[in-house]
């Protein structure tokens, strides 16, 4: 038996109006918690971009001269190979193509720079993850490599970069944990607002059961109401996250003197993925909250 859409929409509308304050409380809680979830993910993505070169415990990068010969490159490669050198845990080679791709991403807001550089100008590089922890020894190893033929320079991971990465991880984890609690609260609020809605309509529910309405027919309008509350809550949160995304990207393009901010950006795709995930989470919280309410308090 089909449940008519206009019936469901009408009943849901009535119910939301009747229960306005409690519905509003649920919607606001969903909005705040989802905004936090979304922001945490967007900020984390942005920080990851800006520190991308230093992920996976890369401690220094050996940049080759753009015109380094292949023999020179192989010599450095051999020196850094974990099989030959026990002080090295892992080494990744970035060829011109990969370097150019990263370059375009980091400077994507600088069309002048982009248009004047070609792939051939890119230096190849080795990203080195040492097996040793001693900063002194790592530094020595890097300095030695600086002298090797064909090497342009060796860049060390700044402590600040590492710190920013650590702090941003910590903050986003704390925000996510808080958001999780808020989401649970939102679910419980939705559960209660649905329970109130059912209480307000208990006579109708009684009659529906008597005349033989199916359980789903009775339940669906209430579950739809929960879904709508979750969805409405997700919308302002989505807008907030979208604004946060644009703010982050603007901060990166102003050639900030703080080096770390230059690489701080989020792609449109990332923001939209987060927003879609938020909307889905919002709807889920609403449906789960109301589903629990109808199964717990609507025994048929």
């Amino acid at each position, binding site marked *: 038996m*089909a449940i008519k859409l206009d019936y469901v929409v009408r009943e849901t509308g009535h119910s939301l109006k009747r229960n306005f304050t409690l519905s509003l409380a649920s919607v606001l809680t969903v909005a705040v918690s989802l905004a936090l979830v979304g922001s945490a993910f967007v900020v984390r993505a942005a920080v990851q971009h800006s520190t991308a070169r230093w992920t996976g415990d890369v401690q220094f990068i050996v940049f080759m001269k753009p015109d380094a010969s292949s023999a020179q490159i192989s010599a450095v490669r051999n020196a850094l190979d974990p099989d030959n050198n026990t002080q090295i845990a892992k080494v990744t080679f970035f060829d011109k193509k990969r370097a150019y791709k990263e370059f375009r991403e980091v400077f994507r807001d600088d069309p002048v720079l982009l248009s004047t550089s070609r792939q051939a100008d890119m230096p190849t590089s080795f990203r080195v993850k040492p097996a040793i922890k001693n900063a002194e020894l790592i530094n020595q190893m890097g300095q030695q490599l600086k002298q090797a033929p064909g090497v342009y320079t060796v860049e060390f991971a700044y402590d600040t970069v590492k710190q920013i990465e650590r702090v941003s991880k910590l903050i986003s984890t704390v925000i996510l944990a808080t958001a999780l609690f808020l989401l649970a609260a939102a679910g419980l609020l939705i559960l209660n607002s649905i329970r109130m809605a059912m209480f307000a309509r208990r006579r109708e529910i009684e009659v529906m059961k008597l*005349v*033989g*309405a199916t359980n789903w*027919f009775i339940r669906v309008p209430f579950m739809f109401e929960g879904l709508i509350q979750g969805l409405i809550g997700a919308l302002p949160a989505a807008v907030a996250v979208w604004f946060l995304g644009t703010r982050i990207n603007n901060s990166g393009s102003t050639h900030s003197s703080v080096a770390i901010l230059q690489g701080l950006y989020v792609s449109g795709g990332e923001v939209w993925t987060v927003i879609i995930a938020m909307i889905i989470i919002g709807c889920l919280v609403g449906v789960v909250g109301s589903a629990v309410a109808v199964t717990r308090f609507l025994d*048929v």
Partner: protein
Amino acid sequence: MIKLEAVSKIYKGDVTALQDASADIAKGEFVFLVGPSGSGKSTMIRLLNKSETPTYGSIYVAGKDIGELSSWKVPFLRRNIGCVFQDFKLLNSRTVYENVAFALEVIGRPKHVIETQVPAILDLVGLAKKTDNMPHELSGGEQQRVSIARAFVNRPLILLADEPTGNLDPTTSVGIMRLLDRINRTGTTVVMATHDRAIVDTMRRRVIELDRGRIIRDQARGVYE
């Protein structure tokens, strides 16, 4: 149409509402359930539409053991059983028409069916002129007619009535009984729990008398006592 086989209902705390009750009610019969308050009349009514389940024994409706019925099928059983109560159970924010239409709407009947059935049934119960009134604008007898219309609009096989005249004066009650009699003549089986001696004695239909949960009398064309 309805068959009870050694049915007992024991509520929490060892309250026996119905004990070892057996009865066989044929299609088209009109049966009065009589007995003092607490004798098990309402429990029997509630067992018949599976609002309650028996502790022991089985109940057959239209040849089917309703104890075996899975819970998702219960609504379909209830579509064949109309129910009328002492307190009418009308929806006060809806008009007479809407109250009756509601019963068809929530079981997914199409609009054109609702638009033909509802006026027809309101005509049958004598409320054709009150379709747009709200329940509180009606007398008790009229409200009970609305509730009968709602119970009968889907043409159920069985009509259960739990003290339908309990809140009404004798004259109004006679009108309600005429209506139930008329519905019975269309072939609908009617089971009515009542306290009303005058009604039972006038109608002279089958009487099942209950006392403290036991059936103590089952008499064709019976009287109250």
